């Protein structure tokens, strides 16, 4: 056990991976000598030399070369500094990485890991604020996860890099410098997939992922003081997604809310609700989705705060959900 922040946990995972998998490479803009704009890749260049390096501001070349190197047996771990910047090179992820195994009938694979981070932070502009997980979840052939704790930041990355398919690990910059927590950094890590029951409850199931998990947990504690017992399920893996656990919980509580920072339309919350509905789970009230409304993101914090869901909004909407329908 080591006491680590979320950012330090990512760093520890990278060190372990470089150590135990000689085929790994770590590269991206400012990740080598400077150690990353958030300090997350610190020390790798010093310790592993040429296997950790800086690149030009060329996302297509970063991602495309990672696909090619992965096809030839390396395990590249590349960083796209903001998820928003992946959009200038989406071809290499969607048309290229995701197709390698399928089209070659399994003769080729592309075991690359793309680390990125996303979401709004106070003052961030519209091009540095988007939550794009649903875009990638629409693409068969990719694995996608979004850690919210230091332990998961560590485990998910280790699992991702060991995975033989392309994996997108979506971190969150507002978490990098958070509280230190004890992290298991030796031995096996949690396997791919699964849900984390962050709070057990009996009145309503709240499914969430990413940084929003912390808002939801805060809301759940406040709801408990008002007599609403919420079960909080975090699903750090979105592909593969643990549908079973969600269905079991929703069936037990009879109410379902899905909370994500991404905007609502076409968000992964829609998929979660559809899977529960499709499984025929009887609910006492129609399920709800809580997310950012369908709008661009304004830079001014007063404007952004009116859009991005927070604990207060989760409390209000979940309370309304628990009062809706038959008791």
């Amino acid at each position: 056990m080591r006491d680590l922040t979320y950012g330090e946990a990512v760093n520890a995972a990278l060190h372990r991976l470089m150590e135990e998998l000689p085929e790994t490479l770590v590269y991206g803009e400012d990740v080598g000598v400077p150690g990353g704009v958030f300090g997350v890749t610190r020390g790798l260049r010093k310790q592993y030399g040429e296997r950790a390096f800086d690149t030009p501001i060329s996302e297509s070349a970063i991602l495309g070369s990672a696909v090619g190197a992965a096809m030839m047996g390396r395990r590249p771990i590349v960083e796209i500094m903001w998820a928003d910047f992946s959009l200038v090179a989406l071809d290499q992820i969607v048309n290229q990485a995701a197709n390698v195994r399928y089209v070659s009938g399994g003769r080729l694979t592309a075991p690359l890991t793309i680390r990125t981070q996303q979401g709004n932070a106070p003052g961030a502009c519209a091009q540095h604020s988007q939550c794009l997980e649903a875009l990638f979840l629409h693409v068969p052939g990719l694995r996608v996860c979004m850690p919210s704790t230091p332990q998961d930041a560590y485990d998910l990355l280790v699992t991702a890099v060991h995975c033989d398919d392309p994996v997108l690990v979506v971190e969150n910059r507002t978490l990098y410098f958070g509280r230190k927590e004890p992290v298991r950094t030796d031995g096996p890590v949690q396997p791919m997939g699964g849900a984390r029951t962050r709070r057990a409850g009996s009145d309503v199931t709240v499914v969430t992922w990413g940084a929003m998990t912390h808002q939801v947990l805060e809301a759940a504690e406040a709801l408990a003081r008002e007599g609403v017992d919420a079960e909080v399920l975090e699903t750090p893996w979105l592909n593969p997604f643990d549908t079973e656990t969600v269905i079991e919980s929703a069936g037990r509580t009879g109410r379902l809310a899905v909370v994500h920072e991404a905007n609502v339309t076409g968000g992964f919350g829609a998929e979660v609700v559809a899977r529960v509905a499709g499984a025929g789970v009887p609910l006492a009230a129609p399920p709800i989705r809580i997310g950012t409304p369908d709008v661009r993101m304004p830079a001014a914090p007063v404007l952004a705060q009116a859009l991005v869901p927070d604990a207060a909004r989760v409390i209000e909407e979940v309370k309304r959900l628990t009062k809706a329908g038959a008791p």
Partner: protein
Amino acid sequence: MSERRLADLLAMWRIRAFEEKVRDLRAEGPIVGSVHLCIGQEAIPVGACGELEPHDALFATYRGHGWALARGVPARPLFAELMGRASGVNGGRGGSAYFTAADHGFHGENSIVGAGAPIACGAALAGRFDGSHRVAVSVFGDGAMNQGAVHEAMNFAAAFSLPVVFVCENNRYSELTPIADMVRAPRLADRAAAYGIPGHRIDGNDAEAVRFHVRDALEVAREGGGPTLLECMTERLVGHYIGDAETYRRPGELERVRRREPIARLREGLLADGVPAADLDAVERRARAEMAAAAEAALAEPPADPATAREHLYA
């Protein structure tokens, strides 16, 4: 001659005073989030913008405060934008890295590296059909030269002889990484030859040199001669963004940068030409007073109204 140089000095001081005020406001709290200052790079916008017509279109980057000011956007609504005031040029929607002021021919900052270059091609293309024959100026950094969109834009403009001036502000760093480590051929202007267009590496710390070359490029563009690439050599006196620890600097580097930065250099030249120091000090004082007043006025204005946050999404 010294009159124009005095005007350049004032224009550069306005930008620097604006940026220093922004730095203070960021430290004190009214400005929140990521801010990229152009301190040390003022001569490029000052030299370039005077040559533009009102109908020309300018596309800048997140390091664009100086370009907006040089293009004639008043300081007060810019400060207001950075502070999230309703009176900001975009009512707080754009912020430091992504505001636009089309009324002033400032067609926006952009915080996606290289994204402005193809858009500038489109602005030039439109001018061919709307009769304006506007020239589009696309500003970006040295690092952006390695972005696919910039290559595509240069070839696109070259193939169709579009009136675009590509202004590359080479400040030697892309964020925390020296550009010299990320290219094999360090003279970025030389890439112009591959597109079949003129390319010049020029002294970007001399507003007069920038003016001369931009005027030339505009003339070529207006006569149908197509695009030009200008690589303006400069250096930032500050970090990539506010909060950058600048650990990548070499010993003594900043001292050297300070000696050749555009304001110090112009001041030295004017002193040598016999302009009294008191006159030069007065220029600085005037610029600082203007910016202090603009910032104070913006600070007193009401914040953006959250009830408007969903407006302007569709027609």
